[in-house]
């Protein structure tokens, strides 16, 4: 075993040597910063933390962090992360990606991650567009939005990630804004600490293809101080607000996590083929 790489304590220690390829001003810088900050605050050991992603601008994330990383394929960050956590419950597993990754090609996996409640954290950088493929509509693009793939305006309705996560009964649901990295870091910290599937929806603008900074600066509002995160119906109401983009913890509930329960159903013993094969004698 090579020498231990822990303890790592400052934000800088979590930064990898790879320089982000993001455009100047990309919202994802703020998310990266907040994530590194939360990692430092939690003193996550880099050798026991894995950041899993799909494909997209946002999904380049793992390369920029010094923890283990798994930059998988488009849409599959959640199942990769769940398999990893099921097999290695001792690790901290964080799945990151974009709105295309999580709400278009990968949205089916979101539904099932909610049902399973495996203890992973999902951080979705939502820029309401496909950044890496240069600006087509995504499920979170607003109805009527004109892009190269919707030259006459987007015909579909806009997907509401937080409302959907709440109605799927995800056990921790929060929203942050990349332009408020300190609050965001705090949210990611709480999400990481939460036992169960935690979902952090991050407004993370793409100034290159769809600059929503101004709109979000205006719309972003902290959840009322008195919001009770165990009140799912109230949380839904905030999530469905058309004017405001509330940030903060919408909902939180402790439920058994699958990777734990799966280990409690039976007392394991050592496998011996000689014994096992006896059933076919």
């Amino acid at each position, binding site marked *: *075993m090579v020498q231990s*790489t822990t303890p790592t304590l400052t934000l800088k220690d979590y930064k990898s040597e*790879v320089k982000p390829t993001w455009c100047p001003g990309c919202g994802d810088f703020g998310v990266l910063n907040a994530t590194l900050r939360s990692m430092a605050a939690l003193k996550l050991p880099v050798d026991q933390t894995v950041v899993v992603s799909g494909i997209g601008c946002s999904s380049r994330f793992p390369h920029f962090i*010094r923890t283990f990383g798994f930059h998988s394929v488009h849409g599959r960050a959640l199942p990769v992360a*769940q398999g990893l*956590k*099921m097999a290695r419950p*001792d690790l901290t597993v964080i799945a990151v990606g974009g709105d295309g990754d999580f709400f278009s090609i990968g949205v089916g996996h979101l539904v099932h991650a909610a049902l399973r409640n495996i203890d992973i954290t999902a951080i979705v950088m939502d820029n309401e567009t496909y950044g890496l493929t240069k600006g087509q509509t995504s499920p979170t693009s607003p109805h009527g939005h004109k892009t190269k793939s919707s030259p006459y305006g987007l015909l579909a309705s806009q997907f509401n990630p937080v409302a959907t996560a709440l109605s799927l009964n995800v056990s921790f649901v929060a929203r942050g804004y990349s332009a408020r990295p300190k609050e965001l870091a705090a949210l990611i910290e709480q999400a990481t600490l939460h036992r169960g599937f935690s979902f952090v929806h991050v407004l993370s603008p793409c100034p290159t293809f769809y600059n929503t900074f101004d709109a979000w600066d205006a719309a972003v509002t902290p959840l009322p101080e008195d919001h009770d995160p165990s009140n799912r119906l109230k949380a839904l109401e905030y999530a469905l607000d058309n004017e405001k983009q509330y940030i903060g913890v919408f909902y939180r509930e402790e439920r058994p996590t699958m990777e734990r329960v799966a280990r409690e159903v039976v007392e*394991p013993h050592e496998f011996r083929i000689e014994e096992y094969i006896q059933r076919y*004698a």
Partner: protein
Amino acid sequence: MENEVTIRIGGESGEGTISGGDILALASARWGYHVFTFRTFPAEILGGPCMFQVRISDRPVKSMGDYADVLVCLNKEAYDRNIRDLRRGGVLVYDPGDFTPESDDFITYAVPFNELARKEVQLFQTKNMVMLGAIAGLFGPPLEALLQVVESRLSKSRKANPILMEKNRLALDIAYRYVREKIDKRDPYQLGPVEKADRVVLNGNQAVVAGALAAGCGFFAGYPITPASDIMEAMAKELPQVGGTFLQAEDEMAALAAVLGASFGGVRAMTATSGPGFSLMTELIGLASMAELPAVIVDAQRAGPSTGMPTKMEQADLSFALYGGHGDTPRMIVAPANVADCYTLMGLAFNMADRYQMPVIFLTDQSLTARVESVDRSVFRPFTIEGRLEYGKANSNGANGANGASNNGKHETAAALAASFARYAYTASGISPMTIPGPGAIPYSATGLEHNEHGHPDYEPEDHTAMMQKRFRKLETAAQELPQPEPYGDREAEIGLIGWGSTEGAIQEAVDRARAKGYKVASLHLRILSPLPDRAIRDFISSVKTIIVPECNYSGQLANLLGARYGLQPIRVNKFGGIPFTAGEILRAIEEVC
């Protein structure tokens, strides 16, 4: 009297046809015989015509037999469907209440199954016991052998009840005595006593599960699909008992993605599927190949294309296993030829996956998943587990994990150490040392993007070229290291057969029969399809004059591969009706060449 008989039972699914056959096979095996079964599945979920065939012999049996020696019909439809497969001069056992057979190409024994069950036993559900009793009385095995199996089955079942057991015993007995008294035996099939042997009796999928567990598989994710579901179901049950975990995924993409996640975490992981699910895994197989992650993927081939015929066999996923996925994507392929292989090759597959850091596709097929064989217990030995080449660790191959990595041990900070770790180092073998998350491990990022030695995205032509060569070099290394198959049959053969997968038994039997007729024939059976065992194949093809490649598919997928690799233009013998070859069919192909 021959100590070998092939008995086919035809009936309606649900009335005990299959379970009756199962009991017959198991009882014969426990009594000391070799058995080999073949069965069909009805299209319906409940009911529908089905059949169960078991070949029972005191010598090892390799195939299901060309024809049934004995056909037991539980109804008229079974007769209509199966009579063409009864050997000329074979025995038809039927219920005269159902129908009256017309031909005199075969010996007929009338046994009133229905009446005996209804009137004598007074419990119609015992009809299959009546049938078994009649079989025991006519051909063997002894009643006690059957009784033992029935008892042990019933005792495990929730329906266990002494009255039922009593009725079963009665049914067996009544039928046994009935045939002994009423039937004038005119056939040569009689199983005599044989020496007891230490064998176990199981089907291909059960052996796959045993192999996975023995190989230390610690994670399974899958999605139900015929005929691979029972692998998943067994793993769901067994894994938690040995400290592993199981996940029923929402689809096959999620299944393989989860497997890759677990594998990244250093746990031996697998999935099992069939054609449609295998097709859905395509993109993720490419990712495993590119990110160099071990994974074992069992593909239980069924007849295709598309949804095809889920309960029928075909060997038509080889081309896809070889070339499935965009780009040049190295992967390994093993294919079991029999139930024993299902065990041993799972051990090999996991070792290959770990050693060469690559997805390994395990190509079984529907006929083998359900084929029950008696296998020497000694086959089920523990495996030698060959782990991954881990950075900084001496690994089980004796090689030091640090080879090829640019770390010289002098870095002072964790950051510098991490920056210097070359996860995808260019090595002579192509195998680069990896790390596994855990205390002290040096982190890296696995990625499906083209990357440099450190795993960082890199699109330079030189790097892509070198990485591509490195990835494929692992296959060359493996081709050197993996076992080479031995030819079977005549050492001076002029005709050579090359096969793969579940057809080995039929091919070898055909070789035996052809040699007995004086033909100079041999066969070579490939258990590893990627990388090809080059040496053995070249030796074999240069030693014979004519090559025949029998395959259960339309396009001749192994023949195509041999053509691509060796410029071979073999004689292609293809069967694609959803049913395995018989030895006789292959023998005819040999005779046509001669």
